[in-house]
């Protein structure tokens, strides 16, 4: 996996709570065995009326957000089934950062395994992000989200930061680094 770099992009505001992994990738696509190409099924039932016909009122279908790399969502994003396909789909579609007030645990962990940065923020900050139309800059190194050049800091567990910054998704690499991760975590408790 490539090391995580600064992301600057318009943010797609998905104004929904409790978005479960079955909304992210509906069950009918879980049978597919390949790991790539899930982007076309992302939010399938919300994006499409039927095969090939998009729903006009769904945010991802708004051309303004076509190349967005940042997804905003409300409370408890990624709840439900543990299917990692949900993260594969978000990644394949092009989202690299997801910002919400809270994430479901397994989904949150799965993000880091696939190079996606999930950021937890307060209600107020999320509201601010939902309200802006300008580009947002996410800097993991500095732990900041910049709106209109004003940086807002966010928290992240140190071992996750390290894994993303160094691109350590790979299982073998993780094993090799496990001692360092434990040590690092111990000395950087938040």
């Amino acid at each position, binding site marked *: 996996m490539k090391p995580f770099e600064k992301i600057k992009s318009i943010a797609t505001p998905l104004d929904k709570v409790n978005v479960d992994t079955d909304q992210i990738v509906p069950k009918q696509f879980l049978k597919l*065995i390949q790991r790539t190409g899930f982007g076309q099924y992302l939010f399938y039932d919300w994006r499409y009326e039927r095969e090939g016909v998009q729903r006009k009122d769904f945010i991802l279908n708004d051309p303004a957000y076509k190349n967005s790399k940042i997804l905003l969502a409300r409370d408890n994003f990624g709840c439900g089934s543990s299917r990692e*396909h949900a993260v594969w789909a978000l990644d394949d579609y092009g989202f690299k950062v997801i910002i919400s007030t809270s994430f479901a645990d397994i989904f949150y*962990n799965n993000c880091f395994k696939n190079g996606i940065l999930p950021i937890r923020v307060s209600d107020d900050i999320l509201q601010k992000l939902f309200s802006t139309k300008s580009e947002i800059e996410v800097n993991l190194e500095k732990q900041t989200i910049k709106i209109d050049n004003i940086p807002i800091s966010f928290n992240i567990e140190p071992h996750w930061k390290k894994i993303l910054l160094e691109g350590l*998704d*790979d*299982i073998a690499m993780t094993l090799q680094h496990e001692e360092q991760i434990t040590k690092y975590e111990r000395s950087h408790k938040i």
Partner: protein
Amino acid sequence: MNITEKILARASGKSKVSPGDVVFVNVDKVMIHDVSGPGVIAVFEKLKKKGMKIDKLWDPERVWVAEDHFVPAADKISAQNIVSLTNFTKQFGIKRHFKYGMGQYGICHTLSHEEAMVLPGEVYVGGDSHTNTTGALGAFAAGLGHTDVAYVLLNGKIWFKVPETLFFKLNGKLPDHVMAKDLILKIIGDIGNDGAAYKTMQFGGTGISEMSVEGRLTLTNMTTEAGAKSGIVEPDQKLRDYLAAKGAIKYDEVHGDADAQYEKIYEYEGSEIEPTVAKPFSPENISVARDLSSIELDKAYIGSCTGAKLEDLRAAAKILKGRTVKIRTEVLPAAISIFRKAMEEGLLKIFLDAGVVVGPPTCGACCGAHMGVLAKDEICISTTNRNFPGRMGHIESQTYLASPLVAAASAITGKITDPRDLK
């Protein structure tokens, strides 16, 4: 330390751990099924492409495999996935593969207790979010994504951040017509869908001591719906007897210390719990069943790892005996061993006499995959665990979550019915 902290300390070779510590634990058992299995195979393929050599697993004896989500094979692709899973178990020498159509098989979480695949004090991980279920056997049980499961399969260990524990104390027995399902729905309604996010939900108190192991399994099963990392109940004589009946007598129990710490203690009076239902589209959206008596239904579903254990089927049969269903109703025992006992006890005859269709064990319609999914605008009462939009079929269908007693009573009247009100 509480039981969860002690299990994680022992498994990581430490004398003490505290919530927030990161520990690398040795895993005792790992499970994959016909969705997470192919997911893990995909991760292995990716690693092999990168040049990693994968020719053996850490310990095939500690790995077991279930076929549950898409069996009987829903279509050509799911049939192919079962073939891939079978090839995988052959290639890596995994002996415990519960195959559809070859004796015992069923929903993975149900097999974990029916076959005593996991024992008290163990660390158990599975490629499914409801892996939490098995914590009712006094084990640390948690679900993982595919990459993490692949890691465990290769290395036999995984890191966890030691979770805080919320303790739910049930004082006194649940009344007649009230089941563990009603209690867990009430708890989720109180703390919310993410009320236990990255925490352990532990259940105890006199009401839990009185509760059957199967009832406890219903509680831990739905800790997932409150966002919990795991759910757990301390081992007692009831659990020992339950496991002994399945031939499991040797294990190393773990109990919390007398001064165990919990982040918060919630108390519930058993006598105050009522038949409870979660309305669409979230398990936290609860109401007492009586307040929903005007809701007309299209279907009742008694199935899944949450609501199709033997005790669940007995409860449904108690209501359905000598009555006829008014809406289409399905009963799918959660494992073949339960199916067989239901047959031997005469429950299947009661179901068939009532007009109910009895199907094979499968996750099937619970996750909206196949075997009886819902059409647009259809309304179902179900003994399952989730009711997000489209969970059991069309995105505009609706699911109400309930106990087997409420589901069976509702099947008789065609409306949501408190079993106490059934004439």
